[in-house]
Every structure is written in C-alpha cells, then in structure tokens.
C-alpha cells in the first residue's frame, strides 16, 4: 500500500486499500447559513467536563447546554437510521455516539466522490503538521481490490503526539474529485467523540461541485476547550477518540467514513 505521508507531528496508518478519506476538518463561525455556495457551518462548541453527561432518553429533544447536539434536533440512534431508506443531515446530527456500522454502503457513492489529499497545518505558526496523498489510480494496483475488506477505503487511523491536543487552531485541507455528474449541494457533517462523549460536530456545506472537477477546501478547526483530565484520558487511551464523517448530496447520505485517533505518540 503506497501512501506518501509526510508527518511531522503524526503518523498515519491506513488500512490496506485506497482512500485517505477521513478528515479532521473543522470550521470557524458561520456567517452564511444559507445553502448553495456559501461557506456555512454550525459548529457546536461543547464543554467537555470530567464526567460525560448521561445519555438522553430516546426520542427526547436535546436542548442546548447538554453535551450533545444543537437545540431542537431530535436524538437518533444508529438502529433507527439503518432502517430508513434515506438518511438526511438532520438524522445524523441527532446521533449521540460513534456508530458501530457504516450507515451506507460504498456503492451509494453514485457521484464518484473521491478524497485524494488531506493536510493539517497549525494556523498560528503555519507549520504543516500532517499531509497524506492518495496516489493516482494507476499506481494503486486495481487488480486485487476484490479480495480486500470493502470498508478498507473508508477508515483511517491517525497517530498524533500529545502536543497535538494543545493546538488551538488548525487548518484542515481536504481535496476531492467528483465524477461527471454535477452536484448541487454537497455537505459534510463530521462528529468527533471521545468514548461516548461528543467533542465537536462540524457541518460544512461545499455547495455546488462542477462535474469532473478536483476541489480543495481548507477550513479552520478550532479545538474545543478540553479539560486537562479529558486530555489526559485521551492520551492514555489511544483510539478511544473516534470520528464519523457523513457526506450528503441534496440531503441524502452518499458516503460515510470513519477514523480513530491516538495522541500518545506511539503506535
């Protein structure tokens, strides 16, 4: 498996095949809540205290101030979403924890969205902390894909050092290509959890994507305020920090990627 991975702070192990599809991307405050081409994001800053708040009851509307979703978004569970024919952005915004399964199959990526590069830089110093590029298809060896785990392309494991948690602002760049169908409204919702606690939720609308285009997007990721205790726990328990990245076209889920994270500086 060939990745070119330039990590100064991080080392990335990805499972076998193709894509570097997981991102830790975030946004700063939103001024354009409208859809289309605006950069819009609702990122909820959650106070992460020492003990996670108890899980809300099913079907209760989660109010602001709770350690979970935005005001008024109903709680959802993975089980109920898996029963739905179509999963919408509002559906995933109600999830309270990392999913066990993927909520869609790789075949549902009918727009042929392919993530080709991911980079993180520290906004305060400009230092590139991490960069990973997916080699062009020719180099990837198409032949033996059938034998590999079909989910291999949608999971990435990141290894950072503890210093990473001290960063305040990083710019996360994502590069992706799109097939020959134009995309009217491309939206990403990414949720980061430590164990069962939501750390941060990102909601980013790319808007329109030109057919057969290659696009890059960098958003600024403000680290949520983390207590010393939570940081300690995150460092001591590699891979208990996980994320789900959901991608929607016209409000329908087309891709779901996952990642997990170590901050202990070791494998």
């Amino acid at each position, binding site marked *: 498996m060939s990745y070119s991975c330039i990590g100064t702070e991080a080392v990335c192990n990805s499972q076998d095949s193709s894509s570097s599809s997981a991102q830790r991307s975030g946004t700063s405050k939103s001024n354009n809540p409208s859809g289309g081409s605006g950069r819009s994001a609702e990122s909820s800053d959650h106070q992460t205290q020492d003990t996670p708040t108890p899980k809300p009851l099913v079907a209760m509307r989660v109010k602001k101030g709770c350690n979970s979703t935005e005001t008024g978004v109903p709680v959802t569970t993975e089980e109920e979403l898996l029963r739905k024919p179509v999963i919408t952005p509002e559906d995933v915004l109600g999830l309270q924890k990392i999913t066990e399964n993927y909520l869609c199959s790789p075949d549902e990526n009918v727009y042929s969205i392919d993530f080709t590069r991911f980079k993180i830089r520290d906004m*305060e110093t400009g230092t590139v902390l991490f960069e990973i590029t997916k080699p062009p298809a020719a180099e990837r060896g198409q032949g033996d894909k059938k034998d590999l785990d079909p989910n291999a392309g949608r999971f990435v494991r990141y290894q950072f*050092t503890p*210093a990473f948690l001290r960063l305040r602002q990083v710019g996360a760049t994502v590069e992706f290509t799109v097939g020959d169908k134009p995309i009217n409204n491309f939206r990403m919702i990414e949720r980061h959890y430590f164990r069962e606690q939501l750390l941060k939720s990102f909601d980013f609308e790319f808007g329109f994507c030109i057919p057969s285009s290659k696009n890059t*997007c960098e958003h600024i990721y403000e680290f949520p305020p983390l207590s010393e205790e939570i940081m300690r726990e995150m460092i001591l328990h590699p891979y208990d920090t996980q994320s789900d990245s959901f991608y929607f076209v016209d409000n329908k889920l087309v891709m779901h990627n996952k990642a997990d994270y170590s901050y202990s500086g070791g494998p």
Partner: protein
Amino acid sequence: MGIVRSNNVFPIVIYVMCFRALCCKGPPPPRPEYDVVCIGLTGSGKTSLLSRLCSEGTENIVPTTGFSIKAVPFQNAILNVKELGGADNIKKYWSRYYQGSQGVIFVLDSASSEEDLEIARNELHSALQHPQLCTLPFLILANHQDKPAARSLQEV
C-alpha cells in the same frame, strides 16, 4: 512506519504556554473572518497568489479544475478565499459560487495578449454587474508585473 517527531511544533507550543502563564492573559480573541471569491482567467495567477500568501510553495501548482477554498491568515483577520479555476469549462460556473461573498478579488495577467485582456475585461464587467457581487468591494490585481510585456497599472 516509524514515527516522525517534529522539533518544530512542540517547543513553540511550550513557549506559547509559558508566555501565557506569565502574562496571566487568556488566549487572544479569534480573528474576524471574511468570505471572498477570487476569479480571473486561467493562468492569471490566482492559485499562486494564494499559496504565496499562505507561505506555501508554488512549484507544484497546476491549473485549478474546480474550486479551492483557502483560509488566508493575516494578523488581524482571516480571509476565507474561494478561488475558482479560470478555464473556459470552469468559468461558466463562477456564478454558482458568488452567494455569501463579502468581497471579490479579480486577478489578471498584465502581460497577456490584447485578446485575452479583452476577455478578462468582459468577465470583470459581468462580475461587476452580477446581482450577488455588484455591491461588494472589488480588488483588481494586475499580476505578472515582473514580465517585460506587462502593462502598467494605467494601461490595464
């Protein structure tokens, strides 16, 4: 894979933390952000310009075949620039990206042919008249001034 440790980030982080502790000040307030769209004909230098502003290298730059959204940091603000490719098959989609912009950067190659300059002029006028841009501030950048054939600002 081995682990590559950086000597860059960690000492800086320590320094910043100590500094803050001594000064008894909280972290500085986040900088305001502005959304800007960057257009211009292909080859005018949009991608290079933005890379330079982000202290990135310009060696591997290829024509942009879609959009490129970049957060360009300045001391007291951050510009979220949505740069759009200028090739013919891309620029017909420019207006799909105008919504939400607070400013426009129009880049042109000062040393381009008369014909290209005319095309640029037309594109600029279209943008100036577009309902989603017509009230916004425009920065028109006469790029490639280092070329011998570059026209002066007046000429442009």
